[in-house]
């Protein structure tokens, strides 16, 4: 199986600071890590390779320092790392990111499965995976919590839904995004770390990918961040008092008032 795992380097802290002038993330002075959700994608790629053979390639788009994330992935056992790095890629939103990844995967050529984390810890949108599949014209399944089997050009997975899971079969090539329930990512090995230290990282620039520069980076990002906030849940609760029959009366009255019944 040819597997491609897309990862992102993110600040290794939950206290992400936002630049008030540009409304983008401030990355200076913060230690960078592999987006935690992507470590599950890496682990699943490795497990699938161990079960069905093949090769796992990892792609990341980011500044030159993002090379560190690829070396960490190689230390876990990934075969090859590709870094998409160019000033033109800076400031990308999900649309521009998925475009660059799409072009890189086209350049790689063949693949059976692409694995992404369900979302990033800093952006939280969860859109890059599905957008990438859309651009490639391949099927995709999000929120995968278990890969059951791969055979005859199909993959069978369990996909998390609100109150349970559904079993989905998808033809390959395809794309999945995974949730943290899927596995427990391994720690690096000494052999892997040594390999990672001297591994050649492939670096592709915008011109290597032959991209339309109006579609990458800030230029290719229609998203306007106006404000970042957690939506408030406005849910009122009230505890009814009294014995059961009076509570029932009160409840029915309130439901009538609210025109629910």
């Amino acid at each position, binding site marked *: 199986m040819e597997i491609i795992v897309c990862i992102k380097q993110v600040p290794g802290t939950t206290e992400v600071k936002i630049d008030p002038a540009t409304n983008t993330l401030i990355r200076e002075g913060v230690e960078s890590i592999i987006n935690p959700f992507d470590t599950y994608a890496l682990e699943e790629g490795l497990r699938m390779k161990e079960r069905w053979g093949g090769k796992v390639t990892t792609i990341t788009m980011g500044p030159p320092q993002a090379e560190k994330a690829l070396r960490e992935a190689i230390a876990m056992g990934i075969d090859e790392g590709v870094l998409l790095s160019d000033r033109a890629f800076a400031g990308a939103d999900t649309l521009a990111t998925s475009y660059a990844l799409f072009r890189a995967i086209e350049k790689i050529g063949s693949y059976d499965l692409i694995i992404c984390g369900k979302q990033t810890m800093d952006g939280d949108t969860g859109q890059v995976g599905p957008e990438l599949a859309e651009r490639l014209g391949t099927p995709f399944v999000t929120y995968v919590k278990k890969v059951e089997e791969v055979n005859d050009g199909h993959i069978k997975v369990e996909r998390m839904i609100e109150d349970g899971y559904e079993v989905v079969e998808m033809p390959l090539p395809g794309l999945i995004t995974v949730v943290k329930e899927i596995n427990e990512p391994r720690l*690096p*090995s*000494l052999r892997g770390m040594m390999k990672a230290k001297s591994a050649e990282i492939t670096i592709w620039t915008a011109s290597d990918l032959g991209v339309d520069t109006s579609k990458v980076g800030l230029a290719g990002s229609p998203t306007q961040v106006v404000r970042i906030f957690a939506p408030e849940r406005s849910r009122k609760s009230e505890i009814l008092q009294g014995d059961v029959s009076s509570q029932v009366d009160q409840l029915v009255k309130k439901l009538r008032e609210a025109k629910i019944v």
Partner: protein
Amino acid sequence: MEYFLTDEQKMIKDLVGKITEEKIIPTRAELDEEEKFPWEIMKVLADSDLFGLYIPEEYGGFGMGCLENCLVMEELSRGCCGVSVTFAATALGTYPILLHGTEEQKKKYLPDIARGKRLAAFGLTEANAGSDAAGIQTTAVKDGDHYVLNGTKQWITNGGEAEVYTIIALTDKSKGSRGASAFIVEKDTPGFSFGKKEKKMGIRCSATRELVFEDCRIPKENLIGKEGIGFIVAMRTLDITRPGISAQAVGLAQGALEATLEYSRQRKQFGQTISSFQAIQHMLADMVTQIEAARALVYAAAKTIDSGAKNISKVSAMSKLFASDMAMKVTTDAVQIFGGYGYMREYPVEKMMRDAKIIQIYEGTNQIQRNVIALQLIKESMAR
């Protein structure tokens, strides 16, 4: 302090540090309480290739040395000494094969040990032969193509869990210590069984058990080196692995210091954190100074051994003596700084203090270490 570690050595320290933080610290209290053998952690160490550290590359390892082993031991021990002694006992059981084994023995045993597929153990001590190791009574009698072992080894770390055992037994009783030989005995060999598992004060997740040999026949190819060099094999092995135990003491003390620092900056009495009292500050200052002094000595001893120096008994003994006495003091002071909370199992330092004691006893008691140091010191001065 700057020890000028190579990139590889720093990498090892980082890797093991991560394992300690993620896998050992969260589970150590439970492992201790339930006296549960740390198989899951051994699996992690195996997957991270750490069992192959000191095994030559041609047998599937990394061909590294004593210093790298010390770095691993130090980091593991920051989390739990029961875990680290389990790792260390495999080295103890493996070095006899590494140092004196035949090519066939190395090919047969080292790759599996390097991959962490099989743990090893080292059996020297008996009920009546502790410090006086020459007093062992287990015998190995040659019978055609076999040796037949009889006797009981006591307090063997990894007993029952390991699959490869290096056993010191007498092949010629009349020759005293020159009549001992070293053998490889595999688990499940008929006539080889395990006696009681000890209940201990500390390092409680490690297995300490009796090995019982009753007419246990092993192929004569399992003799390590040749007949009569059993004690040389044992002493050379212990001299090389002992700094790992010294590093265990350094790591343990470092763990105690870290826990104590954190606690002393939070605990308030008389309206201020206890770390603002000079009495506490001075204890912290002594702790960190003693730890650093021990670390410097241990690394220097390990580097001396890695340089191929001949007379390593003294440096090896000095590092163990100093580091283990230091760890006993530092962990005792850690409990003192925690006060009553330190005496409770809810906090990690009471376990650390219990664990510290064994390091002054095993791999040769500190009294025996002093004997060794003094003897070599006097020998050296006479030679001058």
